[in-house]
């Protein structure tokens, strides 16, 4: 079964490493992280992500610009805010995003 491909973007290197490690602990997910917008765009262009996770430290204008780029390049992309830094909410955030997406797809 194809793994859910996830790109995490955040400015805090240690939290990024933590979130990516958590993502990859789940056998159904494959995660990679980007600290900068340039890295994020390069990774986005070279992969086929299902979900973009927006972490902490991204200034509002850069976040808007990134989201606009991702949605233009891949209209069906799921973009969600990740809150809490990895411990506690990550699974339910992704599950909820997939659930909502799945519901929309079958309706």
């Amino acid at each position, binding site marked *: 079964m194809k793994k859910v491909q996830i790109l995490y973007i955040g400015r*805090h290197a240690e939290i990024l490493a933590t979130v990516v490690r958590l993502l990859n602990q789940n056998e159904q997910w494959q995660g990679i992280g980007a600290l900068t917008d340039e890295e994020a765009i390069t990774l986005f262009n070279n992969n086929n992500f299902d979900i973009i996770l927006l972490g*902490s430290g991204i200034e509002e204008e850069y976040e808007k610009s990134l989201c606009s780029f991702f949605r233009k390049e891949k209209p069906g992309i799921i973009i969600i805010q990740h809150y809490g830094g990895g411990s506690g909410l990550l*699974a339910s955030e992704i599950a*909820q995003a997939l659930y909502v997406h799945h519901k929309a797809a079958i309706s």
Partner: protein
Amino acid sequence: MKRKEFLRKGLMGTSMFVATTALGEITKNDIDELKELDVVGFNHIPNTDSTVASNTVLHKADTRGHANHGWLESHQTFSFANYYNPERMHFGVLRVLNDDRVDPAKGFGTHPHDNMEIISIPLEGDLEHKDSMGNASIIKHGDIQVMSAGTGIFHSEYNKNSDKEVRFLQIWLFPNKKNVTPRYGQLTLDVNDRHNKWQQILSPNEGDAGVWIHQDAWFHLSKFDKDFETTYQLKKKGNGVYAFLIKGDATIENITMNQRDGLGIWDTDKITIKANTQDAEILLMEVPMTMV
């Protein structure tokens, strides 16, 4: 794909807790080492319809998520870690309400947080706190602890005592402003100041009673005599209030509540409360119902 299978595939194998760089040298019990638990969700525990009125939601204690890791037992009002229920994601900006028990000398190893207002309220025992901002302290029953995680913070929380459990409420609120400078605070409250009245323990305002956070929220604690009746007037238009019955029984807006039940009410400016048992303890959390 069937709904249950879909949820299971989305979640199986997830170990939610994390420990990274070591802050503490305390008893090794990093939460990374937690055994993965089966997903607990709305297909696995009884969740009767919790909407009891158009502006009211009742969460009975036995419908909460439950995780038992041995050293840690947690009852979760909203989806957290292995517990996922799409109907229990949050109440307004209130995202996490965990009712935790930690074994003697055990605890949460160093782990990160960001962009969340995190409040801990010890109910029994003592918690030892350390964080990446250099704070090291003990919080005990009667205290309240707050962390604005903002751009990122690492911390550990351990049961200070080797001979008794610690029980505490762990509460997370979405902040009204992202990427703030991380901040830690704690305060010792006068527990006598909540007898038959509301004791404010948290607000958005530095200098107001209790601790403060980056959110238009107000928390109050009370300890009521049996049959004592009172009201709570909401502070801000548009806010809702989530009542959590820490101890005893009470009736809130004509809804009977028992220990550890939670009741959320919105589209109102006032609620009425009556204690049905002696020393009924209630935590009221007034929170915005929408994100800024």
